[in-house]
């Protein structure tokens, strides 16, 4: 009876092809959407994301003609008990010049803890022009109970920074990753 229908293709073939489409779309989320999003964020500085590894400085002219204000913000996520604050809240820097500062961290608890700082730049347009040559955010930071540490940050503001940007805010959010780290150690 199927022969008198309009289509000569068995329905099961159509169904199998469509199942293939569904499987491909499921994979698409993981192998395309997630990496693509991360690449786009890195390239375009979307969400104020900065590079996750050290910038290799290229020797350039220091632009003495203008000054950019860099503000530092330190935030603790959720119930993170650490003390965490920038040594200087505001720096005035020349584009092209290498600058350094420190953030102070204290662990008021008696247990050793591990933290991860996540940076974000505002305005996000400035993110591609803010180069960190050294940052405590590149790695997880461990502190023994009741210990304190000075965490270094070295950065260069690119001399190609658009001239209408006068202030850059660098915000760090400190996350408690102790559980995640100990879980990993336990499963290893």
């Amino acid at each position, binding site marked *: 009876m199927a022969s008198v*229908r309009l289509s000569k293709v068995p329905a099961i073939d159509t169904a199998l092809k469509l199942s293939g489409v569904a499987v491909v779309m499921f994979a698409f989320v*993981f192998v395309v959407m997630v990496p693509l999003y991360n690449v786009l964020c890195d390239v375009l500085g979307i969400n104020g994301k900065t590079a996750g590894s050290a910038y290799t400085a290229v020797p350039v002219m220091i632009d003495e003609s203008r000054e950019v204000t860099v503000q530092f913000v330190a935030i603790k996520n959720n119930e993170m008990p650490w003390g965490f604050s920038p040594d200087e809240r505001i720096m005035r820097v020349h584009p092209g010049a290498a600058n350094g500062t420190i953030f102070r961290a204290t662990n008021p608890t008696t247990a050793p803890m591990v933290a991860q700082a996540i940076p974000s730049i505002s305005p996000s347009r400035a993110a591609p022009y803010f180069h960190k040559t050294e940052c405590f955010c590149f790695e997880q930071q461990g502190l023994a109970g009741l210990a304190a540490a000075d965490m270094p940050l070295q950065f260069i503001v690119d001399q190609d920074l658009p001239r209408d940007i006068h202030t850059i805010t660098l915000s760090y959010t400190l996350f408690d990753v102790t559980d995640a780290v100990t879980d990993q150690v336990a499963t290893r």
Partner: protein
Amino acid sequence: MGDHHHGPATGVTRWLFTTNHKDIGTMYLWFSFAMFLLGGFFAMVIRAELFQPGMQLVEPAFFNQMTTLHGLVMVFGAIMPSFVGLANWLIPMMIGAPDMALPRMNNWSFWILPPAFLMLASTLFMEGGAPAFGWTFYAPLSTTYAPPSVTFFIFAIHILGVSSIMGSINIIATVMNMRAPGMTYMKMPMFVWTWLITAFLLVAVMPVLAGAVTMMLMDIHFGTSFFSAAGGGDPVLFQHIFWFFGHPEVYIIILPAFGVVSQIIPAFSRKPLFGYASMVYATASIAFLSFVVWAHHMYTVGMPVAGELFFMYATMLIAVPTGVKVFNWISTMWRGSLSFETPMLFSIGFLVLFTLGGFTGLMLSIAPADFQYHDTYFVVAHFHYVMVAGAVFSMTAAVYYWLPKWCGRMYSESMGKIHFWISFIGFNITFFPQHFVGLAGMPRRIPDYALQFADFNMMSSIGAFIYGASQLLFLYNVIATIVSGERVSDEKVWDGAEGLEWTVPTPAPYHTFEEPPLVSKPAGTF
């Protein structure tokens, strides 16, 4: 497809083991109506709490569970399955096929739905309560801060996703492979066209939703950091993935509704559908555009200006094919021989109110203005105009229109008309004031509000109770029709109705078109 005819089996096994598209369609429709009442009950709790400012009836945490479950149950439990039920009943009859292409898979697609929703509803009784993060389940609310029941929610989404994908594969295979001789693509009824396109959307985006909840599951239980900034992930990524599914999803809901009114308006205008071909192309354009506008739901996340502009213009572009459709429906009625039976009333109600919802959608598409409207009751008003007055009104119209064909009995026309007017008035009393409170800054998903919003919220609540009650009248009318409605035996129940489903006897026999009919006339010709 045996040579001998046999009727339905008897007892509960008829429904458990059935592979008949009409039985499965019926089960989908009843299931979705049950979910509609459940989701409606949640809505009543929300409106009762918002009847007056201050905390009245429920705890804020429970209020959040209500808004979440209301959205999830209505979208995934009521609207989507109801249109799948309609597709099951009608598509084989409209294209002259004896059944769906894959009847056993059809049975399976339906029967995994009730357990999924049972699981979702059971989270209400779990420790920590039901999911309370809104139907959009943004991370990290739905991951780091979620109640333990979130795992059941994720599993429920997986199951209903699988059900939707199987259902759509079945529909596409039926439409592509089972058409009767002469039923070329451009002769198919609009309802079949809109469902074909909807089914493609479903196959493309339901796996994306499954991916999103899978990532949540892995973040919660397996130590990954897709959406956790601490581990190098990004909560904004969740919103991109969710809305990459979520925007096509809203067209998945509305396109079959377009198909329904494209069947009903010509029937009661006694004229063929105006601009059939442009309707097909407009539907396809809407479906295509739905993939490139998702970020208009998230203008406020801090996108680059170029992104905001792209998504703004792309969104506005959708108004063009949608406008084509609206003008085609109006042109169909123009100089038609109109009569206003209940299905037509609901279709015209759809047309007026959906257009209103479309206009508020255009307002929301303007990125700079959206910063004011974002997450306010203006958004709530907008999407209820398109979801309720759009999808639910057209679904109601569909039930009134085809019910006599299905059961061979006529519903009570006067009760139907009363149902329409109470629904129409109740709906507008509920949602029209929400535009005003939204523009004035009342945020959505909050159990309390500032005093200046009190009057409009009380109106809204009264309207919601009226609208809710009118659905019980609908239920009564449908049951009364099935049990003791006046018998009809005309093949064409409505004098203006056109299409193959009106050529089979009334009530539609258990098996139809075992021998394919020969189709010569284009769809909807008179």
